[in-house]
């Protein structure tokens, strides 16, 4: 399975780590690694999440993460190329 790195900006509110971890556990997504750190804005934290998923499953992970109210934005960090930005409303894709 391919590994994907997601850079997730979250509101720095209590319970937000539990929400994200709980979502991955409940929906049986594989987390390879998860780190949380501060950003320049004290109200916002950054989570870097490495997941192992295939194809449309990645879109599902991102869409489900986006449903968490405390999740502000999700960016997929591509190894080689520029980061692919998924804002909270994924754009129409055919």
């Amino acid at each position, binding site marked *: 399975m391919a590994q994907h790195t997601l850079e997730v900006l979250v509101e720095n509110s209590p319970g937000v780590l539990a929400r994200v971890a*709980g979502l991955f556990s409940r929906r049986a997504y594989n987390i390879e690694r998860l780190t949380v750190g501060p950003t320049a804005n004290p109200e916002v934290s950054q989570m870097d999440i490495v997941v192992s998923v295939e194809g449309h499953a990645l879109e599902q992970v991102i*869409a489900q993460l986006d449903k968490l*109210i405390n999740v502000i934005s999700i960016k997929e960090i591509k190894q080689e190329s520029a980061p692919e930005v998924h804002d909270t409303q994924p754009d129409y894709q055919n």
Partner: protein
Amino acid sequence: MSQVTGAQSLVNSLEAAGVDVMFGIPGGAILPAYDPIFDSKIRHILVRHEQGAGHAATGYAQVTGRVGVCIATSGPGATNLVTPLADAAMDSVPMVAITGQVPSLAIGTDAFQEADIRGITMPFAKHNYLITDPADIPRAIAEAFHIASTGRPGPVLVDIAKDALQKMTDFKYPTSVNLKGYQPRLEPNAQAIADAAALITQSSKPIFYVGGGVIKADAHRELLEIANLLGAPVVTTLMARGAFPDSHPLHLGMPGMHGTVAAVTALQKADLLITLGARFDDRVTGKLSTFAQNAKVIHCDVDPAEIHKNRFADVPVIGDLKHTLQALIPELRAALKKHQPDLSEWLRQMNSLKSSYPLGYDQPADGSLSPQYVIERLGKISGPDTIFTSGVGQHQMWAAQFISYENPRTWLNSGGLGTMGYAVPAAMGAKVGAPDTTVWAIDGDGCFQMTNQELVTCALNNIPVKIAIINNESLGMVRQWQTLFYEGRYSNTSLDSKRVPNFPMLAEAMGCVGLSCERPEDVDATIEKAMSINDQPVVVDFRVHRDAMVWPMVAAGTSNDDIMIARETAPDWDSQEL
């Protein structure tokens, strides 16, 4: 600005949010809030179990389209709300639950009646809050109502520490809510609408696969318009009964595990599913890999996470369904002017299935009462303006099958979670939301024994609901599976409820009128008697025969192609040209 208690600020906030009724039970941690509730113009209905408060809030919300509100104390009060909150999440019901929490300094100490209800509800609540500072109360309430009622609706819990209710604070209700991480997309993408219209005109076997989202979005008129415009068949899922009139010639009925042969087969044979606010639930798709294998999919939903979740969507359209259909109708009308597909052969085939395999049932040979007959008569006599609620089991499926639903918000059931005990409290909430409408709960003898205590609430608060207990003296749906899949070994499914309890006496004890009926010839008169009583709740014990089964059936995990219309009986496919 004058200072108020956090409790007063909570009640002011609920009033500012437009709450007119809430269902609940007080207790230590929430007690400070009950003092200002005493003086508030909000009607508080004192239930007998918090589960009843939760399902009542759901019933109210499903009937009115507004946010249902329930309130409970910490610990057991809050955990009793877990089932209705999970239920509301599965069926996308807008609900706000308020719970008291132990004082903030006691949180984490295993204090008396402490339960981490925010943690418990995290996996399914649309969102939740733990408030320890009274200054946060108005914002949390405003956000909770906003989140519960917008986008894909759902339940939001606000847990408030007791000291936050007691401390003094300034009350100022926010004039607007702005959440960085929550901006539901309501307007569909124009390109998606154009692609959807194009795909529809290329299809020769399209079908509207309609889910509960159409009702949530109040998009039933738009659905009627687009269905008439295209002239394609329509199926309405368990959550969507009433979204499209059952009497409409394009309606093939309900799909799914106990759907009609025509509805199930139409989905299987279609070349295009125009999916509106439905989520490809396993009870509809059967074995997913064999579901509608030749169909392309247009998936219209307000929740982006439904797209590609169970089924790949060729054209996803994210947005509020009303807006989506309002945009799609003119686009489709223009596209059809250029190319009008010929759907006549497709319609002829599906109508032939519809007339060859109507829903039906056998009258019991011994002259005893048939449950389907009772439910059919209830629907006919009470009529299409009635609101029906149901429990979970065989009676639920028969109520979905044998009553004609003509209007949205007239059929309330626990579709996603399958919560036994939903019917009575949901009927209570429905009647509070629509006091001038007749509300019938069609309940099982098993389900009724889970939540009937709310009839006391109904009797004391002038909420004259009507309950039809379909008493087959068993956990009928489970028994049906034992008949079919466990060689008739009826382990723990007999309830003996024709002996105990005496339902009419139980009803009378709770301040209701209790009636009973066990002969087919008495059914109409009994229903009419119940219909004539409007100043008290009425409970009718319909004593039906226990061996009736729900058909058609697609056994769990099998393909919709293997639908059975009776035991070991498949439709006669050879006689159908499909």
